[in-house]
């Protein structure tokens, strides 16, 4: 009972709610960013890159913590360095994975080094890896919102050519889409989004926000309009839901957020499986034809 009470505690809920107003706003902004960027993380097969970037983002944030400068800025610098290295050295998927595999432990090691040298509040240290408890202060808030706006504007401008380049790079290039430049710009935008997420859910759990929402949505829709909408909905729901559930406890918000997003994914996978069995790929007028299995398109 006491463990359960530690995980879910809703006493003085109203008073606490006022305190986390900032966190809720930040969570919603992050949900929108994560939901949209995860569409391209999935379309471009970049989940592993996200993980690699988040480790270097963690190193940057811990360096900033040690030096006593703005942690969000440190995290953004770390992210951008990682995104640039992965973007430049890892054009092909194989190269990319090995570059990330090399970069990731180095970033994590650097982060551990900086944190060991840091003698401030222990909660700050832990928070960078596994997420904040609740508090987002006002200067952090303006960084978070500002970076979110940059990411959202960049995505709105390049959405269509980026989707074209992600799904069909040869034809996109033939039609005049600057495929390579878009790829580089996207890595930078992704770096910013990851740096944002590290602040709230922590470096180890970024994928819950920057990969899972679209992975879930893709199971239930292939409509290019519905997909980003659902993905944003899932991300915002798990961010806000996680924050509200975590409120009364002394546990960071990340386990709540990751569990919610995992449950959403499971539900979507279930719905998707049923839909496939009933014949997602059934042609009208050929109702008797058996549905094709997902694995053999």
């Amino acid at each position, binding site marked *: 009972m006491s463990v359960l009470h530690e995980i879910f505690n809703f006493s003085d809920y109203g008073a606490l709610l006022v305190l986390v107003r900032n966190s809720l706003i930040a969570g919603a902004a992050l949900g929108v960013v994560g939901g949209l960027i995860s*569409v391209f993380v*999935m*379309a471009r097969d970049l989940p592993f890159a996200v993980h690699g970037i988040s480790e270097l983002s963690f190193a940057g944030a811990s360096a900033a913590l040690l030096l006593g400068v703005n942690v969000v800025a440190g995290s953004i610098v770390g992210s951008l360095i990682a995104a640039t290295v992965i973007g430049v050295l890892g054009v092909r998927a194989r190269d990319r994975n090995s570059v990330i595999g090399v970069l990731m432990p180095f970033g994590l090691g650097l982060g551990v080094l900086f944190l060991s040298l840091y003698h401030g509040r222990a909660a700050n240290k832990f928070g960078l890896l596994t997420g904040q408890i609740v508090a987002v202060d006002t200067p952090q808030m303006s960084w978070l919102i500002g970076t979110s706006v940059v990411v959202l504007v960049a995505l*709105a*401008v*390049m*959405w*269509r*050519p980026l*989707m*074209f380049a992600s*799904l*069909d790079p*040869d*034809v*996109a*290039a*033939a*039609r*005049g*889409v600057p495929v390579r430049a878009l790829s580089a710009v996207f890595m930078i935008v992704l770096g910013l989004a990851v740096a944002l997420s590290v602040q709230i859910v922590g470096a180890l759990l970024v994928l819950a926000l920057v990969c899972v929402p*679209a992975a879930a949505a*893709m199971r239930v*829709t*292939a*409509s*290019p309009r519905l*997909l980003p909408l659902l993905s944003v909905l899932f991300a915002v729901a798990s961010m806000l839901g996680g924050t509200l559930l975590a409120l009364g406890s002394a546990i960071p918000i990340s386990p709540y957020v990751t569990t919610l997003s995992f449950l959403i994914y499971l539900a979507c996978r279930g719905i998707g499986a049923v839909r496939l069995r009933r014949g*997602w*790929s*059934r*042609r*009208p*007028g*050929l109702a008797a034809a058996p549905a*094709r299995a*997902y*694995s053999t*398109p």
Partner: protein
Amino acid sequence: MAVRSLNAVRTDADPVISLRDAALAYGDRVLWSGLDLDVRPGELLAVLGPNGSGKTSLLRVLLGMHPLTTGTRRLDGGNAAIGYVPQQRAIDAHAPMRARDFVRLGIDGHRWGPPLFGGRAVRARVDAALADVHATAYADIPVGLLSGGEQQRVRVAQALAADPRVLLCDEPLLSLDPHHQRAISALMDDVRNRRGTAVVFVTHEINPVIDYVDRVLYLAGGRFRAGAVDEVMRSEVLTELYGSPVEVVRAGGRLVVVGGGEAGPAHCADEEAPA
């Protein structure tokens, strides 16, 4: 030989795409040189040759994605006039698009910013392109769940949706079964007949398209020969191109190319591979 739609070629019209005295070389290795090429509206040109003869490079030159070493390329209407059908390659099963969205990429996929205007008109063009390739039945199915032949039709629809003046196809029949090879070939023929689109078709198998081809450009051994099928696909012509004995045999409306030695047409084995 079966019916040939020679009347589809608008010989009086200006060429859609031309090369003049064009050469392509990688370092010392000259793939081809002195190439003059005019493709006219409604013409179907097959580009043939063994691997490494510069077929795909020629297509990339025509696409404007690769510069010529010497010579000039002229394209009537700029790159917007080009439709491109790449080699058949499976589209990711989880690609977040239905067939109709994939076709739409051909119309506005290269545009920046959110799509604000013209949704209805774009939709009508997508529907028309899907109907042209007889793909309406699976317009709303996720493109990654379609079969290889269906995906290739959708690719053709995507290329046609922009209403190109020339359709450049890179081995569009590769890895398709004979049934779908025939279907896609017939589709190309239909398109150039009805729309007057010029079609350049890179292939190492002439047989699926032999009934529709107006002209052949055969690249081999740093040389080339262009002309009607009967002028180019002859033992003495290919022997000269390859510099080693090659025999062209006709059997039941099909061509069998039998090469001599290692320098011979490596592609003949593919042409005769049982279906």
